């Protein structure tokens, strides 16, 4: 997580992909790179009460694999693509989802 100056949820995210594609693959020296230069911004947030379908749509539309989970202005967690897959499998097993 990268916090940018300013009020509210002004965050970005750096993943291994950012480091590989934006730094290493371009032959740049990681020591010369500031996190703010490669962070994906803005970090996308969902409310803690959002359902799996909303999160899946957001990931698909924004082409991202991680979304922050927020309670108002506070970040309380991160949901990743694999969490979504686990949640979907559980819903299928419970018979709560039609595919």
């Amino acid at each position, binding site marked *: 997580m990268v916090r940018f100056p300013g009020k509210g949820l002004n965050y970005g995210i750096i993943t291994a992909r950012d480091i590989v594609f934006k730094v290493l693959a371009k032959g740049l020296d990681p020591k010369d790179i500031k996190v703010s230069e490669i962070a994906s911004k803005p970090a996308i947030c969902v409310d803690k009460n959002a359902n799996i379908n909303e999160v899946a749509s957001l990931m698909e539309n924004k082409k991202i694999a991680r979304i922050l989970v927020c309670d108002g202005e506070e970040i309380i967690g991160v949901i990743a693509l694999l969490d979504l897959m*686990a949640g979907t*499998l*559980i819903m*299928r*097993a*419970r*018979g709560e989802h039609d595919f």
Partner: protein
Amino acid sequence: MIFEKILSLSKKEQEVTDNMREHIKLLCSACDLFRTTLENNDRNLMRNLIDLERESDSIRRKIISKIYEGAFLPYLRPDLCRFVEIVDHVFDVLGDTARYCLDGKIPEQIKSECIRIAYLNIKICEMLLITFEALLKRDDLREKTLAIRIYEKKIDDIKFSLIKDIHKIPISNFWEGKILSDFISGLTTISDIVEDASDYLQIINVSMK
């Protein structure tokens, strides 16, 4: 089909499956009660869990007696009894964990994570009930047992972070540390045992095909 013959037979078998269902439902209620008591710090309610442990023992004895009175084919009886004993073992661990809770105080730093595990324990027990019902309906159990393994993995992940967190908690004497360690161990072992129980359901399922 042999499966149909085995699981939709006489009154005795029906009584056994009804009791097994009752046993697992009681387990879901016990886990729910445990979470509520943990959330509300209600020590009196925690004592009720120990009563539920006794009730589980009574249901276990009833099921095993009925099985050995002649319910189900002999080759199935050991696996069915083993499943019932595993479910009963969850009650024992839950009861012991409740006792640790009564003996000590859960540090505030780890309380929310403990409540999260207690919540996942309810979910994993509900999934065991769903898996049991699927066995009776002759449905495929693979998706259900996979869901149980997912819950178990989630609890394992929380357990590792909890263990890191408890290293930072000051402990004043040996017994305080032991009670806390046993409490966390009990709380995180429940899902392992439920996973074993679900494996047994799969064994019973496969052995009847």
